[in-house]
């Protein structure tokens, strides 16, 4: 069930250049079931910014009613969010959307988790759950540059982890796809979240695999009412069939929607 709650800031830290890790406390954590869901945040009491901001859930702790997000402070909204202090209140609408299906990876099988930049965060809770279930997890995490890298050790604790930077300042140089081929990684299930070109490349590269992609789109309501975030389906690329990223997604099965 979606809830709207004023959550309390438990911590907010800059963990990489302009990248913040924000932990909130609230009852709505009880509603968070799947990794890969997101919340819609009102970052200020004023009309500036007016709209909510969609941010993925990176870690869920239901025993303590806390959840963690990781975001890049870039525009007005995320910059304000980066300034929140312990004890401040953030208006949260969530959890929203459909996340990554953990059940699709069998215990003992291998899952490849590929993240790009600020698409990395939702993979963390996913990896925790897969690992817990006995799935072998491999992470390939791409960033622009060394300063932007976060959670390297945390992922490494859960499984094999490759860091890739576009400029080669940390880990391998290049794109995530280069590393997957170079390392000859083998896996049954692929979960990914990141920039659209990366998702597109991965979907094209592994047509025979079980692929799950998390999409981003500009949102209005975040709950399915405004038709801001629609995408077309691969079955009906020019008709009027559509999926809403906010409610049908953000995670889609490879081959389902046109990206």
């Amino acid at each position, binding site marked *: 069930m979606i809830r709207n709650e004023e959550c309390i800031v438990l911590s907010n830290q800059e963990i990489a250049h302009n990248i913040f890790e924000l932990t909130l406390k609230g009852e709505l954590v009880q509603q968070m079931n799947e990794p890969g869901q997101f919340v819609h945040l009102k970052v200020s009491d004023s009309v500036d910014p007016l*709209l909510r901001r969609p941010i993925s859930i990176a870690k869920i702790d239901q025993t303590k009613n806390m959840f963690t997000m990781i975001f890049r402070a870039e525009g007005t909204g995320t910059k304000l969010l980066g300034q929140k202090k312990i004890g401040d209140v953030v208006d949260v609408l969530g959890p929203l959307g459909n996340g990554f299906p953990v059940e699709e990876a069998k215990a003992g099988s291998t899952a490849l988790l590929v993240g790009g930049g600020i698409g990395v965060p939702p993979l963390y809770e996913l990896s925790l759950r897969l690992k817990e279930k006995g799935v072998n997890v491999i992470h390939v995490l791409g960033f622009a540059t060394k300063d932007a890298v976060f959670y390297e050790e945390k992922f490494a604790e859960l499984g094999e982890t490759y860091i890739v930077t576009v400029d080669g300042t940390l880990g391998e140089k290049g794109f995530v796809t280069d590393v997957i081929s170079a390392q000859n990684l083998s896996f049954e299930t692929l979960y990914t979240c990141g920039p659209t070109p990366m998702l597109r490349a991965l979907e094209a590269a592994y047509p025979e695999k079980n692929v799950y992609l998390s999409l981003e789109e500009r949102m209005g309501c975040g*709950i*399915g*009412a405004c*038709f801001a975030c629609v995408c077309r389906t691969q079955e009906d690329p020019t008709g009027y069939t559509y999926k809403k990223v906010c409610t049908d997604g953000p995670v889609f099965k490879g081959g389902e929607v046109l990206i």
Partner: protein
Amino acid sequence: MSQLAVNLPGLQLKNPIMPASGCFGFGREYSQFYDLSTLGSIMIKATTVEPRFGNPTPRVAETTAGMLNAIGLQNPGLKKVINEELAWLDQFDVPIIANVAGSLEEDYIEVAREISKVSNVHALELNISCPNVKTGGIAFGTIPEVAKELTKKVKEVSSVPVYVKLSPNVSNIVEMAKAVEAGGADGLTMINTLIGMRLDLKTGKPVLANNTGGLSGPAIKPVAIRMIYEVSQHVNIPIIGMGGVQSAEDVIEFFYAGASAVAVGTANFVDPLVCPKIIEQLPVLLNELGFDHISECTGRSWKKNEKLAYHRA
């Protein structure tokens, strides 16, 4: 709650608050948050004869105290709206205002004829002012004669009263209002969005795939108030006001300007509970201001010789 009940052509409303078209889908999503029967009415998403996909994404962009949208009238088409959406809405005790759109005159007529027959549709909202579709829409909304003709034809086929939704993107809003009144409109709804645009600092290109979009939200409220103030003094049909409403105070301001009911659009995205909250706050505010009934507020900005309710309290 009788303090809030208002009667408009075709609409016996328990309160004058309703979500604006396009900002509430067909109600399903918001029914997760509250009982839709709380609402005075619901203006459902624009309906066209055939299903429409709408414009490419990005379809929304934020601006200072406002937002731009270029959804492009995406909707499942007349048949599905009737059979699935309106049928579903029938479980609630709330009269529906059906937003009617199209590209050609025939489209409007077809939708109006069919949708007005549905039992929970108590009024039509003729959307001649959508800025986000290439043909139709806003063309009908900027030329008085064209608007009048369309109104007349829709009136002929409609089984329920017809409200015409006016575009603010005109030189003379009063002229438009009078034209549709002359065409037989039972009421007006105003304002639709202002045409606006935002460019991306890095690419230099429009943020919206459609380039331009409709500006809504608090930023446009002063324009809405001005237009309702002017139009309400020149027509004899009621106005459902909208444009940037966020609070009970805003609702009263729209009434003062000349509105008889108020729709809430963008604010639903900010706070999904905004409509029931406003409905709850209105009686408190009316009491503070010294009004017995909300309809006493209508047109107070221009009506002469009325005692100030505030001093009466």
